[in-house]
């Protein structure tokens, strides 16, 4: 996360760290049910084998093994069949739900998050010198309507309807490399709903180059079907 701040420990308890079998963090993800994690397909390019991955839950310091930490192997990988940058991981056993590990809510199918809503992204990715390395960082910014985001001044027709843009027009804060696969959540009443999966951007935190996130509401039926069938 570029800009933003170090989060209160365990205040985003659905955030997971996706790691290699050697426990090296490389992507984020979101716990959406005790045994299921949502992440980005591009995070799974390094291997087709589930045993190549581990999931760390209940973490704040990237390198510390706090008592809250739970580690799970991955039992199966499910990539979105039409090639979208969204994938599901089935954990080898359900996570223990406690103060430190709580799933995020999913949106209703095809709901669109409003243009002025402020949402939050979290992760252990690059900070580009803005501090907080090694701790879970967070930052908030508004969702930008695709029509605006696709203007020549912004991302010039690169954003699909199954994606959403979010960021500050002036830049300065954004998700970045290593945050991929992690959650973009938006408050709704007293809950956080996961509306995005961190996917891509042109650089990080550049003016008029907001981050692009897979629009989760476009894939609800695939998520529900995959979980039900597996």
């Amino acid at each position, binding site marked *: 996360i570029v800009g933003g701040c170090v*989060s209160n420990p*365990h205040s985003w308890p659905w955030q997971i760290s996706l790691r290699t079998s050697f426990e090296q963090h490389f992507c984020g993800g979101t716990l959406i049910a005790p045994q299921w994690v949502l992440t980005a397909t591009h995070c799974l390019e390094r291997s087709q084998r589930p045993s190549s991955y581990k999931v760390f839950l209940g973490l704040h310091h990237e390198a510390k093994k706090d008592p809250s930490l739970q580690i799970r192997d991955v039992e199966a990988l499910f990539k979105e069949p039409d090639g979208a940058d969204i994938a599901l991981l089935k954990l080898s056993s359900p996570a223990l*739900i406690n103060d430190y590990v709580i*799933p995020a809510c999913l949106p209703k199918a095809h709901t*669109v998050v409003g*243009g002025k809503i402020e949402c939050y992204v979290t992760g252990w990715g690059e900070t580009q010198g803005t501090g907080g390395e090694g701790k879970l960082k967070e930052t*908030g910014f508004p*969702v930008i309507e695709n029509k605006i985001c696709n203007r020549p001044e912004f991302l010039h027709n690169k954003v699909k309807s199954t994606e959403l843009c979010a960021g500050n*027009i002036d830049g300065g804060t954004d998700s970045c490399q290593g945050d991929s696969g992690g959650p973009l959540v938006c408050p709704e009443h007293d809950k*956080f709903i996961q509306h995005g999966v961190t996917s891509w951007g042109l650089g990080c935190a550049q003016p008029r180059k907001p981050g692009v996130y897979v629009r989760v509401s476009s894939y609800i039926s695939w998520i529900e079907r995959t979980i039900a069938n597996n």
Partner: protein
Amino acid sequence: QGNLLDNYIKTEGAWILSHNKHIYKTNNPEECAEKCEAETKFTCRSFTFTSKDQQCTTLAENTKKALVLRRTNAVLFEKRMYLLECRRGKGEDYRGTESKTRNGVSCQKWADTEPHVPRFTPDSNPNDGLEENYCRNPDKDVYGPWCYTTDPKKRFDFCNIPECEEECMHCSGEKYQGNISRTESGLECQPWDAQKPHSHGYIPANLPDKDLKMNYCRNPDGEPRPWCFTTDPSKRWEFCNIPRCATPPPTTGQGLQCLAGNGDNYRGKIAITESGKTCQNWASQFPHKHARTPENYPCKALDENYCRNPDGESRPWCYTTSKDVRWEYCSIPSCEETKVEITAEAVDEQVPNTEDCYQGNGATYRGTTSLTVSGKRCQAWRSMSPHSHKKTPAAFPNADLRLNYCRNPDGDRAPWCYTTDPSVRWEFCHLKKCGDLQTVVQKPVQTTTESGTADCILGKGKDYRGTTAKTGSGKTCQAWSSQTPHTHDFFTPLTHPHAGLEQNYCRNPDGDINGPWCYTTDPRKAWDYCEIPKCPPPQYECGKAKRKQKMCPQR
């Protein structure tokens, strides 16, 4: 054909004081609007409606003049006509407050007889709104509203009242409110509140000030012209052809030579970007092609190559003459007032978020939460937009009304704030009472849903289906289907078939923030809240962390 309420602007949680008023009992706001239209004792400019009491109060005042107060459950409806400061057609129904002629001479009061004896008076023309010395058009003059002047040598003169943008548009049509609903190529527009065939984020409820009605062409986002999403699945959106008004656009005052706000009023001559690049002339398409032309933005003073903010950006900018850098912001010196403001805010932002709960009624709460119970952002206390109010830091110096933090300056039940949603004046905040914080949960469990018949409530108790039938003050509840001792048509088993309005059990059909309630059998007390214990906290609910988020950066 539209609803009677379309003629009104609605604000939830607001109440105004007025000397001229009339109280009725009506079943719904539509009936209250009918009462307002039929008012004969005074000019009805607004009304308030409270659903629980079914109380309709028609009022002579509106928020232009009267003091606005907060009140739970009250909804204020203001007649658009009395809020408009523009004219439609000849302006016979203009009821704005312009009181100077086009030459700047003050108008004579319509009721006065000096310096000119008027032919039109409030008595002779009671329906023409001849109040004070406001410009009016009682004789349907083709040149629009006028007034008798205070200059003894000039009996009357016309006023410069801008046209409302109903038939035509000024500038880039940001305020166009007409009914054109086809694009320039003839495609029919998709209604703004629909998500098919094109899903989008221009949700009318989130943008109440943009007038996203029906499927009419609008310009909510700084485009050169009004546009709409189309009903053609292969064409997401397209511009509409709206004719330009013949009259000059409304003046917005003199431009500034320094930066204030987002700099949309900057009219200075700086033409270099913050990295030192020369700006491209706005009228030129070289080296960068663009749509921010003087023709597309006629009211934005896109002169020469001066830095400007024509499209709602955060500050003035320009296309650059460097072909590698399409655009950049400009460094414009700040106006002094803005500098003070920014400094004060920056200092305040250093205050850490140390309190996540409040004691008692929260009058001493000094934390930094700035979200309401429904997730809306708080308006800054010193700001008068979108809601003007009297709860300012100066008026309540001991209430710590900093930034947009939740506070309780007026001894209400809990910390609250005005919201940044123009349609919701205020709400209580997303804060818990200190004693109510959830306890630590250790065991893994299933998600709990808000339902069931237990005699306890989850959240606001909207799904409470228990059998408590007494209010907190010990009064027995009246059956929901009964009309004695209190007649009520708004919350009945018929009007709210899914709200569980059985027998006389406490229920919360309107999602009242204070929980279930009922009409009482005490003829002197129409309704009251019930005291129902809270259910033990669910062991986990998705999306709810046990630790509070910083939610940075706070703005």
